[in-house]
């Protein structure tokens, strides 16, 4: 039951079918990667699971620990334990990182979090991710570099400790040093109590976050799954051979 289970999921945007029967099982304790060319529907999968209203579910199911998440509101899905690290994190002018994360934590518990304990854990996680303390008072994502935005997403994930995480192209915009720090942050969160889905179209990230399984996504569905060596093969040979395999009915 400790699993994110997606079965035959179909999703439309503006009446256009983007996901056409996607299935994926992510058990807790594992890290899976989804790779696929641009425009294939990877972000669509992430946002549809998170409950974004522009994404119309036309078929299939998605459950988290047995609970139907497609019936829930965005915030209910989040509080049920699904976290999405955005490909394009959104700016919230005037709202500081510290207040934002605190509000997110408070939304999950009856009693408001103790301020001293909160700052202690926030500073610890920031140090871990190499984020300067003065970021706490900066507005969420406003004027951040690409890399700062991504680190900040991982900071939120580390503070909220969700059961299932989807990281949408968290590697894009990062140089190698930043990539290592972020990967280290993610690796520290690996464990029995959590399932992580890493979306990327570069194999590079997977050298640092080594996945238990790799899924190749094309034209709105998973077309091939394998272990980490599949990622290397894609890196070397591109996606065309997979297309050909499908065409040949292998």
């Amino acid at each position, binding site marked *: 039951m400790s699993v994110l289970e997606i079965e035959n999921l179909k999703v439309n945007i503006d009446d256009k079918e983007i996901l056409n029967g996607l299935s994926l099982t992510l058990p807790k304790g594992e890290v899976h990667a989804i790779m696929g060319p641009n425009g294939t529907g990877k972000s669509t999968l992430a946002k549809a699971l998170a409950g974004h209203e522009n994404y119309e579910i036309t078929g299939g199911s998605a459950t988290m620990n047995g609970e139907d998440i497609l019936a829930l509101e965005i*915030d209910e899905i989040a509080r049920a334990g699904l976290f999405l690290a955005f490909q394009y994190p959104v700016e919230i002018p005037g709202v500081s990182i510290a207040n934002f994360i605190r509000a997110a934590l408070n939304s999950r518990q009856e009693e408001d979090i103790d301020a001293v304990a909160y700052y202690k854990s926030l500073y610890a996680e920031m140090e871990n991710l190499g984020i300067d303390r003065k970021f706490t008072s900066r507005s969420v994502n406003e004027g951040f570099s690409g890399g700062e935005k991504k680190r900040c997403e991982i900071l939120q994930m580390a503070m909220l400790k969700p059961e299932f995480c989807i990281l949408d192209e968290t590697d894009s915009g990062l140089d190698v040093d930043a990539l290592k720090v972020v990967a280290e942050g993610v690796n520290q969160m690996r464990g029995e109590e959590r399932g992580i889905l890493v979306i990327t179209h570069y194999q590079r990230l997977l050298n640092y976050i080594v996945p238990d399984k790799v899924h190749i996504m094309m034209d709105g569905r998973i077309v091939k799954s394998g272990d980490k060596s599949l990622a290397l093969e894609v890196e070397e040979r591109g996606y065309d051979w997979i297309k050909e395999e499908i065409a040949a009915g292998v």
Partner: protein
Amino acid sequence: MSTEAAIDIDREKGNFSYDTEYEYNAGIGLTEETVNYITDVKGEDDWVRAFRLKALESFRSKPLPTHWATKDLENIDFDKFRYYLSKGQQPSRTWDDVPDDVKETFERLGIPEQERAFLAGVEAQFDSEAAYSRMKDDLAKEGVIFVGSTEGLKDHPEIFRKFFGKVIPTGDNKFSALNSAVFSGGSFIYVPPGVKVKQPLQAYFRINAENFGQFERTLIIADEGAEVTYMEGCTAPKFETTTLHSAVVELVALKGAKIQYITVQNWSANVFNLVTKRGLAEEDAEIKWIDCNIGSRLTMKYPGVILKGRGARGEVLSIALAGDGQHQDTGAKMIHMADNTTSNIIAKSISIGEGQSTYRGQVHIPKHLKGCRNNTECDALLINTNSRTDTYPAITVRGDDNSVQHEASVSKVNAEQIFYLMQRGLNEGEAMSLAVNGFVNDLVKQFPMEYSVELKRLIDMEMEGSVG
């Protein structure tokens, strides 16, 4: 700091009223008789009676400003209001002496508690008159006067009369004329030269009666080098009928004095809030209006500063929140009359649903002046596409040696922001509220702590109520 003690003007909490026996009641409608009744009850001097009667004429002769504000003003039926209601003229100096129903009202609103926590003095007005008024003894020893305007007029006519009606002439507009005819209550403050009042003086204006008009008149004088912060909070119960609140507030800051005037009001949706507020700043003096308008059916209010002496500074920081069906027509006036005067206006408005916000500004720097500066920023935040916002900055600056800076922005809380915030676990109301608080944050940071806490709480309630 205890948030319990913060100024509390929760609209829901304020939504109650007591059946009250009034000793004095001017009846319904507005005639010479009404004005004479008020002046008789108060035992005023002849010059005040004459002043009032002249104001009544002025009120009658002036048109409603519906050509630039809103036709909704035409729905005010001046014959249906009660213009004076009180239980007596003498405010008590201890809460024990305040009549039970009135005392209970202010206790429910948390006033005595705030007084103990952080205030230097409190005046609590119930309908037309102050029911309670008290200031810390050490301030009285320094010569500070803080009483209701009725008392001020009676006991300190030599100071009162000198400044009364000088900053805002009776005929300034229709509502200042109305106030001048029937004014009652409000505060009178005098701070002697060099005295700096450290904690705020606070007034709380409470409307209890239905079909009632509250017309408080406040006059604050900071003598040379004096400093004072004054804070007003207001509430009224939610009645089916309309309520009218039409105050006149005059501030006088003599050479080198500083006055900070803070308003946090949260009127229920039946209140017409039509207020005239202006300050006069002499040489090197500073007047700062912090004006937060939440609620009401229609608010028209443009706090201003006349920068009369060299080096005078004027500032208006305002936040207006127009919920569904409400109209906030607010702004600022800065009249530069001397060299090296500076003014700063930062106005932020939030419009929700059918709510409408208008910024109306006037900055005037004549040609012969040198070294004057104005900065005006108006930012509007729209929450859902039905909301409206208009900006009329009206800046007239002449002369090469003067500078103005004007920026205006309109932004929306967009669906992607709400999605992002909700993805972190906040419900829709909390997400909206966080975005709105973010929008006003840089302004609110400049407010004293107690008021920024209260404002945040009011915004939270307003936003959570605005999503179904």
